[in-house]
C-alpha cells in the first residue's frame, strides 16, 4: 500500500494525481479517507465531523443534480437541499454553511462570480473568495471533479469530500462511491447525530483564503 496521503494543501502548484502516487479506489461498501480505504460507516462519521468542524462548510452540486435530467436527479437535488438545511441547523454561531452550484464546465471568460458559482477550471477562486475550509462535491462528472479536486488541493488548504456516483475519487481527502439519495440522507443523519459533539475551528481556522 502507498505511503502517500491525500491531505489538505496547499500541496504544490500542480499536485500529483493521487492515483499516480499509488492511491486506489474503494470497493463497493467502502470509502477512502486521506487515501486509506475505510468502511463506509467510518467515512460518514469523518465527513460529518469535517463539515461540523469547518468555518464555511460548503456543498458544491454539479450539473448531474442541478438539472432535472430525470426523476433520480431531481430526488438527489432534494436530498442535497436536505443535507444543507441539516447542516445549517447543526452548526454554531460563527459557522456559515454555503450551497454553491457548478452549473456547467465551460472555461468561462472573462470571469466567474465566485459568490454565486464555482467553475472547475479555477475552483480555487470560489474557495478563496468565500474562505471555504471544507467542501463536498456531488453530481459533478468524474473528469471535472478530478480537475477541481486537484486544483483545490494544489492551491488551498480546503478539506475536500466527494460524494461520487461512480467508483470514487482518489484526489479528494474523503470519498464515497455509488452515491445515492439514501447515502446523501445518511450523511445528513450523521451530521444531525454529531451535532454539538464537534468543536468548530472558529478561532484557529486556517481558511482556504489564507494560502
Amino acid at each position, binding site marked *: 500500500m502507498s505511503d502517500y496521503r491525500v491531505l489538505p494543501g496547499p500541496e504544490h502548484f500542480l499536485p500529483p494525481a493521487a492515483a499516480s502516487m499509488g492511491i486506489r479506489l474503494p470497493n463497493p461498501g467502502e470509502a477512502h479517507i486521506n487515501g486509506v480505504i475505510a468502511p463506509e460507516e467510518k467515512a460518514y462519521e469523518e465527513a460529518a465531523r469535517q463539515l461540523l468542524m469547518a468555518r464555511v462548510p460548503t456543498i458544491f452540486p454539479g450539473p448531474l443534480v*442541478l438539472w432535472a435530467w430525470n426523476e433520480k436527479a431531481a430526488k438527489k437535488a432534494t436530498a442535497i437541499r436536505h443535507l444543507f438545511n441539516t447542516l445549517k441547523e447543526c452548526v454554531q454561531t460563527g459557522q456559515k454553511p454555503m450551497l454553491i452550484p457548478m452549473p456547467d464546465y465551460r472555461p468561462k471568460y*472573462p470571469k466567474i462570480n465566485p459568490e454565486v458559482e464555482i467553475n472547475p477550471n479555477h475552483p480555487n477562486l470560489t474557495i478563496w473568495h468565500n474562505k471555504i475550509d471544507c467542501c463536498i462535491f456531488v453530481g459533478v462528472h468524474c473528469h471535472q471533479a478530478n480537475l477541481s479536486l486537484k486544483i483545490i488541493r494544489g492551491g488551498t488548504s480546503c478539506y475536500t469530500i466527494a460524494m461520487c456516483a461512480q467508483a470514487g475519487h482518489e484526489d479528494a481527502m474523503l470519498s464515497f462511491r455509488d452515491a445515492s439519495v439514501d447515502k446523501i440522507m445518511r450523511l445528513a443523519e450523521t451530521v444531525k447525530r454529531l451535532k454539538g459533539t464537534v468543536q468548530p475551528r472558529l478561532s484557529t481556522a486556517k481558511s482556504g483564503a489564507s494560502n
Partner: protein
Amino acid sequence: MSKERIQISEDLYDIMPSDYQDLVKNATYGKEDRGWKDIGTSKELIEQHSLCAGCPESMAFRYILASLPNPEDTVMVGSTGCTSLVFPMVAVHNIHSLFGNQNAIASGLKRALSVRFPDRVKDVVVLAGDGATVDIGLDMTLQAWFRQEKFTTICFDNELYANTGGQESGLMQKGFVAKMAPVGKLFDKVRLPEIARESGCHYVVNCTVSKPSLVEKVIRNAVHIAREIGPTYLQLYTPCILEIGKNSMEGLQEMRDSEKPAERFAYKEYVSEPAKQLLAELAAKDKERKAAAKQLAGQASA
C-alpha cells in the same frame, strides 16, 4: 431534444445563477419562428463575449445564434482564433477543434450523431476564421465538401489572422499590408465561394453581417439545405477593426462600404437545383403554417 429536457431541479433552483434561470425561462429553444427579432426581447444564446469592443464578429455571433433553426439539437464546431474565445459563452453545444481540423471533426461528429440519434434532427455547424478555413484547414474544408458531408461551414472572413496579431491570410486582399505582413499581399484574395461551388456545396453565400435579416435568411437556408441535401458554405465579412485601424463604432460602416455592388462583399449566392427545390418546398410549408396560425388566431378572437 426539446425544451422540456432543459429544466433546473426544483430544490436547487434558487441557487442557480440568474443567467441559467433566464435561459430556461426566456430563451427561444424549441421556438419554430425564432430569429433576429427575438434579440432584446428574449434571453440570447450569447451575451458576454471576449472580443474587442465593437468587433463585428460579436454582431455576427448574435445574429447567427438567434437564427439557428434548431439550437437545442445543434452542435457547433469552432477552431482557434478570435471566435474560439467566444464559444465558452455560447449556450449551444460546441466543440473546439485543433486549428484547421474543424471540417474533419464536424464530418465525424455529424456521422456519429446520425448513427446515435437516427430519429432526431441533429445539425452540425462549423464556425471558424479565414486562416482556419482557407489556409491551414483548406485540406479538411475541401475534403468535407468533396465527400458531400451534410453540415454547414461558416467562415468569419476578417481577411487576416487576427488573433495572432495580423498575419497574411489567403482571404486577404492583394496589396494589403498588415502589422505582421509588412511586404503586402502579393496575390489575389482566394476565391473560396467559387471553389466551394465547384467542390460540391449546394448553397454558397458571400456577404457581410450588416443586415440581421439577411444573416437570418442565409443561416436558415444553409442549415436546412445541409440537413437534407449536402454541404453548404457561408463566407461572412466580419472586419477586424483592430487590424484595419478602425474604432469600435466603425465596423458597421466598413461592412456597408464593402458590400456595394462592385465591392468584394457584394451579395453573391449560389443555390444548386436540388437546394432550390427544397427551399421552395420549405417556403410553401411555412406559408401554409402561417396561414393556419392566422386562421386559428382569428377563430380565437372571434
